[in-house]
């Protein structure tokens, strides 16, 4: 279970690195928020959402995609959608 959580987190982190052009040295964990990442604003968040949807082959619900407090909540949302499928 824990290994699966890590895999989702790693894939989310990879999308984030591509979207925000982050070097590997920038750590991304469940507690990471938009305030920790340069360039993560509401505008670029839309592109992150699109990148996540493409990476995981799913559609995030509109009422949740702009209501996420940190990376952990995004990971949990992805997992809950995968579980429902």
């Amino acid at each position: 279970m824990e290994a699966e959580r890590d895999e989702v987190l790693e894939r989310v982190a990879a999308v984030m690195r591509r979207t925000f052009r982050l070097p590997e040295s920038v750590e991304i964990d469940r507690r990471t928020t938009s305030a920790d990442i340069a360039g993560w604003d509401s505008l670029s968040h839309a592109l992150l959402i699109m990148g996540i949807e493409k990476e995981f082959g799913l559609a995030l619900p509109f009422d949740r995609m702009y209501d996420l407090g940190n990376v952990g909540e995004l990971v949990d949302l992805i997992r809950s959608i995968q579980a429902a499928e």
Partner: protein
Amino acid sequence: MLKTLIVYGNCQAEAISTIFRKDPVTEECFRVLYLRSFDHPSDGRDELRPEDVRDCGVLWEQHDPRPFPHRDALPADCLTVKFPALDFNLLWPFNCPNPCDEPEPPVFPFGRFPYGDRIIIESIGKGMAPKKILNYYLTGWERYGMDLDRLFKVETARLGARDSHCDIKMSDFVLENFRSERLFWTNNHPTSALLRELIHRLLAASVTHEPLLDELDLDATISYRFAPEGPLGVVSVPVHPKIAGHFDLKWYNAAERHQNFGGVTYSGGEYVETMIREAISFRETGKSGKVVPQTIQPRAKTLIVSGDVQAEALASLLRSVPRIAAKFEIVYASNADKRAIPNKKLAACAVLCEQQDSDSLTMSKKLSQDCLRVTFPRLQLNLLWPFNCVNPYNEPEPPGFRFGRFPYGDSFVLNCVGRDVPPPEIMSYCLSVEWSQSWPDLDQLQQGESTRLLALDAQNTVKIGSYILNHFRTERLFWTVNNPTNKLFAELLFQLLHACFGSMIERGATDFEGIAAREIFGTLNVPIHRNVAKHFGLSWYDPRERHNYFDRERLSYNQYFEELIESSYYFKRLRAQTAG
């Protein structure tokens, strides 16, 4: 006392505050202050004075991760209206900060190409050649494109989510209109059309009853006081042709020229290619500016126009002459606030155009020795209105009549009013076919006016006095003694440009009709006495002409004088009652 309005936010909030300061209606309603919500790369952040915050009647606060910092100090009755930032991913879905760019103030405070493109940046990272990247960008959509319909839905959710934090909602307007009307120059720079809608919504939410605002004409203010692209059109990023086609953008023009910082314009392809070359150069050398040479950063220099409203109109028109606007930042210095010009703009002044008799800037030690100094006269012709005088029976009634109903008096009529001559009798003189012996000698007047105008030519770089003398009979050059027609103003503009730039400017270069669609000073048209017209042989004179009266009515010759007499008697009686 004016209500203090504080506008807090990014450059869009600054644009709103600038528009309000320049609009004749809003400047009478509000004292407008702007507070930046971000750190400007070269100008930093300004602060508000504590007394300004204490006096604040209305706060327009842009929704921002950094909220207005002085909320606790606002008075209890201050009305706060929260509005969203205006931005839009849909037309530039690959937008990203450009890592191969750096600020170079003052011409490029945000860098040369701060709006990066993910596809291009990634291609550069792979070591692709510039031409290959451009080709890939234009033809490789199938490989890198995204689901634009899904993006539309995500973007709709984003705009809606942000609106939910605000009192003013804008997503409905953006999503309904982005196809039919251009609403953005870049992903975060709205056009004037969108700014205007936001301002109207802000006003509707802030002001319950203010009759002055019925007169508000934002389009006129924006078109007159700003460059054609509006306050935020300094950069226009091309939209990918695939995206324009997918969303069926009605306003899209593949042949459009795109303005960038520094005043340089590019076709869509040139813009992308120059950005690619700049970025590659930056990666290789660590410095920008290898591709866009220093010689085409002309707006580092300013062209200052100083003087009264005629000078302000000249400055506005100069901003609309592409060749000049691309070369200089045009700065207007009114007689009242000349000291407000920042030192760096004075120091960068390459051309100073001063209206004669305006408080001289030429003594300023801040001006460069190389600065070209040109003087031009205030346009005025007394000859056609020999009775013109300041009207003592006139009072400002803003906003419709900011200078009163009849600011241009007629000494004969007003003397009659002063002596209580009955209105029908005054009218009979106004309509008289004979020129009374006691009235001014028109030949003598002409001699004096010729001397004055030729003396102006001798004193100024721009010689327009002789032009007036040679043309006033065959062409209408003035609406009032000091309000020139566009015909004359176009000549002044041309002569000014010629004095500044010589043969670089040919007569047709200004396309005056294109940049001044309506008469700039034609809001009031004072009738010319029939005998004056006859004496000087004015070939264009039409005694049946209707006279524009503050853009409200068009009055016949008789109506104009009847109204003048009636209005003058009204104010005379009013004053007598007040004094009594």
